[in-house]
């Protein structure tokens, strides 16, 4: 039997020891707080003001948010970003799935499922390279490929489609598509490698069971491969969608938002509004809304991708 007093003392000393571990967390948390969390909150605060960055700002409540929704240029930038999602996200995922279906087929058919394709690691290295180099450099590269004397037009001319040649990035109908396809080029390899590595983790018995049920290659892909890749699909969807919505680098160096407002994206407008147009509050509101949009999409994707069995 112990006296209550000593028990409390012991509990107190133990709890101090428990908290002592926070000394390891403190430096990381301090930097994170000071240079990421507080600036984010500061953005939210600034979004409630009209401020040119120099003189005294004035409180405007939610007027900046209203302007983001009503101003055609601002709303247009969000619409453009959503169009980019098609090119940054849907097309790479589709390409990745088609490739996975075609490449994984022989392996799943051959039973054991371990027929490693020859030279695959070399291909993997190459396909992920666009993901590794700076997007600015990628943008400059494509700016030149899309140029009037660029490779795209040269190739079109070479195959007798010279009439199609144009300054792609300056074309009102094609500029956004051209920028989007750069994203497709960057992200397809990543999606493909993600799915191919996911396929290797699938239990071969699932394929055998499907085959015993008389499933053909397509049925097999739809009823075994796709559901088993649920986790990888969620990752690909998250990463690529964020890349599209928060895009800045590629647009900045290829079109700068032009021609007109055809390819502006929220990131570009945040930069311009805050640092050239002197509309810091409006830029902040756009930044906040962009982040909320990203957060909602990430949340929904991860919610949907969770396996059905409920976890506590």
């Amino acid at each position: 039997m112990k006296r209550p007093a000593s028990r409390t003392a012991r509990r107190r000393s133990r709890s101090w020891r428990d908290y002592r571990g926070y000394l390891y967390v403190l430096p990381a948390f301090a930097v994170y707080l000071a240079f990421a969390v507080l600036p984010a909150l500061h953005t939210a605060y600034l979004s409630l003001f009209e401020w040119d960055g120099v003189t005294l700002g004035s409180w405007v409540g939610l007027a900046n948010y209203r302007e983001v929704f009503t101003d055609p240029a601002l709303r247009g930038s969000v619409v453009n970003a959503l169009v980019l999602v098609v090119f940054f996200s849907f097309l790479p995922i589709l390409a990745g799935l088609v490739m996975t279906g075609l490449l994984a087929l022989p392996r799943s058919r051959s039973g054991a499922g371990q027929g490693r394709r020859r030279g695959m690691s070399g291909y993997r290295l190459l396909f992920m390279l666009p993901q590794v180099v700076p997007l600015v450099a990628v943008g400059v590269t494509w700016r030149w490929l899309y140029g009037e004397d660029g490779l795209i037009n040269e190739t079109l001319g070479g195959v007798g489609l010279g009439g199609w040649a144009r300054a792609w990035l300056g074309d009102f109908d094609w500029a956004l598509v051209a920028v989007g396809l750069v994203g497709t080029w960057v992200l397809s390899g990543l999606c493909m490698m993600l799915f191919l590595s996911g396929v290797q983790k699938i239990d071969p018995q699932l394929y055998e069971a499907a085959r015993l049920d008389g499933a053909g290659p397509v049925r097999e892909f739809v009823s075994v491969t796709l559901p088993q890749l649920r986790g990888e699909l969620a990752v690909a969807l998250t990463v690529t969608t964020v890349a599209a919505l928060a895009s800045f680098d590629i647009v900045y160096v290829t079109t700068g938002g032009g021609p007109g407002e055809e390819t502006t994206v929220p990131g570009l407008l945040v930069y311009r509004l805050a640092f050239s147009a002197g509309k810091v509050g409006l830029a902040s509101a756009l930044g906040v809304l962009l982040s909320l949009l990203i957060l909602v999409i990430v949340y929904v994707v991860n919610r949907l991708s969770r396996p059905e069995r409920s976890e506590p």
Partner: protein
Amino acid sequence: MSTASRAERWSGQALLAVLAIAVVVPFLSVFLASMQPSGEPVVGMAWPERWSLDNYRQAWTVAGFSDLMRSSLLIAVGVVPATLLLAGAAGYALGTMRLPGGDGVAALFVAGLTIPVELIVVPLYFDLRGIGLTDSYLGVILVEIALFMPFGVFWMRTHFRTTPASLVEAARIDGASSWTILVRVLLPLARPSLTTLGVLVFMWSWNQFLLVLVLMQDAAKRTAPAGLGFFVGQNNTDVPMLAAGTILVMLPITIVYLLFQRSFVSGLLQGAFKD
């Protein structure tokens, strides 16, 4: 069976080859352009008549890419070790100790995983200017560390949680302090995870654009991508030199990628996995 599978294998190989060409051609095109005589217009993908590194020499000296690369390197060298140290320590505590409220703190870090630069860059400019940290390597370094910290802590915490608890227990019974356990027992085992985190952070730091564009108004302190982005606006008639600059900006990160390919691939595939 054998003919069918052979046909499948061949169509697979052909498909891979086509995709490989699609990836290579843009890089090759820029490389060939960088070898053309300086200042001349370049059309399509022309084989240079004479191979020379003149454009690179010019980009390096006249266009100031040597300064740009040095700035990039300086920032990366500041960011990578600091991120590893801070994220490693925090991941260790949050992953192996039962901290009261530890899960909540970990969740706070995870919440930052999707913070886009766009959300923080505007006030950062005004706040850091106020304390003299714009046009400063230290300012960019601190912000980048903060930006990469959510992923770093998440990554290291995941790593430390998978190390067997018995290892830590045994060392604790032997009377080792938490610091000794980390340095003597856990760090040697964490090498692969730290390497992967290190190369990813190096890549993110090297490729960072918007942040540097805003925080570095001083042209002499811009990083390589920011300098290239700026350069595009000014010298876009001199395609060969621009191409040389582009190759120069891509070269260091490509070399690191090739040297650490295993860490990179596993990081991009798994790291993306938890994003």
